[in-house]
């Protein structure tokens, strides 16, 4: 059986400087897999590669046996990978529910003609999507805000909205870039609980996060990057006691209080 997600010698350079260099790792299905490393280590770049926003300079990415290199982000979304962003990419011109409805886009087939003519199948499809979006909003505790303008939402709720929206694509793998950044303690706890619950429903989560308490509490496995390169991999306990990691990252101290 093919591995869930696997990269092989993945490299991305910007003007000759490697942001990701010869990175090989594998992630198992149904886990919370965290990628940690100091600022500039290449974590966001890795996400951009996995989600098709950047094209690798060299190396391979395989997701459930399928080669991802060269696919565009919307194709990757159709294969079952979705993500949230370090700076939320909310559609601020839309309501909370509408944001989530865009997440349902890939489950629909209504095209320009059917939509413009308001054909019955377009109407029933819209109704189904609405239910799906509401479910995901409810999962993230946002259903009571469905009709709010998204630009009126506080930061913590924006982060959850981005999660609800990504869930609406029904991903098999969800990439989350610093979901707890900018959240207060209780919001961070909620977000952690949400991610764990999500994993229980069968969505695999790849997490980039600076809050070490959160990472150690909810991750099954961790990958440590340093200057774009593989530094270590293992369970939270193994990583916490790995001298290389302590020297490169944990030892430098103050990253964990975000």
């Amino acid at each position, binding site marked *: 059986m093919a591995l869930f997600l696997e990269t092989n010698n993945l490299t991305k350079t910007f003007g000759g400087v490697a942001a990701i260099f010869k990175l090989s790792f594998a992630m198992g299905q149904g886990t919370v897999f965290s990628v940690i490393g100091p600022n500039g280590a290449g974590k966001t770049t890795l996400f951009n590669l996995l989600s098709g926003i950047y094209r690798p300079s060299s190396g391979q990415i395989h997701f459930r046996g399928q080669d991802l290199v060269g696919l*565009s982000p919307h194709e990757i979304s159709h294969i079952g990978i*979705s993500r949230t962003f370090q700076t939320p990419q909310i*559609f601020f011109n*839309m309501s909370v529910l509408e944001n989530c409805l865009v997440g349902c*886009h890939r489950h*629909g087939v209504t095209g320009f003609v059917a*939509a413009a003519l308001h054909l019955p199948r*377009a109407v029933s499809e819209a109704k189904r999507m609405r239910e799906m979006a509401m479910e995901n909003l409810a999962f993230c505790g946002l259903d009571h805000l469905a009709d709010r303008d998204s630009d009126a939402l506080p930061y913590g709720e924006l982060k959850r909205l981005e999660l609800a929206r*990504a869930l609406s694509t029904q991903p098999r793998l969800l990439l989350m870039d610093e979901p707890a950044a900018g959240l207060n303690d209780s919001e961070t706890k909620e977000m952690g609980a949400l991610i764990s619950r999500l994993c229980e429903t069968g969505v695999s989560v790849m997490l980039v996060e600076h809050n070490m308490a959160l990472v150690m509490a909810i991750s099954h496995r961790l990958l440590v990057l340093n200057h774009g390169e593989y530094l270590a991999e293992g369970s939270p306990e193994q990583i916490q006691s790995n001298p290389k990691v302590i020297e490169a990252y944990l030892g430098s101290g103050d990253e964990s209080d975000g």
Partner: protein
Amino acid sequence: MRRYGGFLVLVALVVLAPIVFPGNYFVTVVGVTIAFNALIAVGLNLLMGYTGQISLGHAAFFGIGAYSSGLLTTLMGWNAWLALLAGLLAAWLVAEMIARPILRLKGHYLAMATLGFGIIINILMVQPTHITGGPDGLADIPTLTLFGWAIDSDIRWYGVATGVMLLGVWLALNLINSRIGLALRAVHGSEVGAQMMGVDIERIKVRVFVVSALFAALAGSLFAHQQGFISPDSFSFHFSIELVVMVVLGGMASTYGAVFGAAVLTLLPETLVVFEEYEVLILGAIMMGIMIFLPQGLWVSLSQKVKQIIASNRSTTNPSAIS
């Protein structure tokens, strides 16, 4: 059915106007021009207001429709309806061809590219004088006939033009309230965000560009038959700008706003005839003023005001409704 309430109001306005003001110049003559402009503006609004892609060259598609109809009916003796279809097809092909490379551009580059495209098409109307009649234009375009019924009076044209405009508004409203409309607005909100939600942004931008081009070309064909005469001046850079102003006046991302913007901008020079030489100056002042003081557009700002007033009335008459 709340969202079609506005549409019914618009239909009522359009139907009642010629009944309340029979034979009024502003209704049956200016009204036709308003309807054509509104049709183009509603289409352009799908592209600009909702999808966030500026076009400074949409007069070109208006012109492609008009010249297709004009040339095919006068020079080749085609049936007017066939010529209209050919005009739509021509606009479709041109839009499809340029949309992909053009819509890969953003911001100033997109503005410049669409502007250049519009100017090139306009020059193609002026230069081949032996075909298009050059700057003097093309005359003697026959009027349309609908089921053996010649559309040859102001009021008949009013019926056709506003009917087509209402159809355009209805299609646009449906589109915007659909899966496709959500995706278009998502592209405006965040392109990467939309992509990650599975929206093929390149494709959907091309599609909406084509749709807006078809709206403009349809208006162009009808315009050519209604006027009986067309010249390149009607399809210049200046008209492209006026179209943008209509959308902006309407507040971008509001279909009724686009209709409103078209009405205001079409009526303005008509009501300012006394100050004819001030027309250009006033257009410029409006553009600056709106963007500086009412960046939401006149329509959206006005309707927000109205909503506020209604809301405050309600809360004073019915104290329990405070939420």
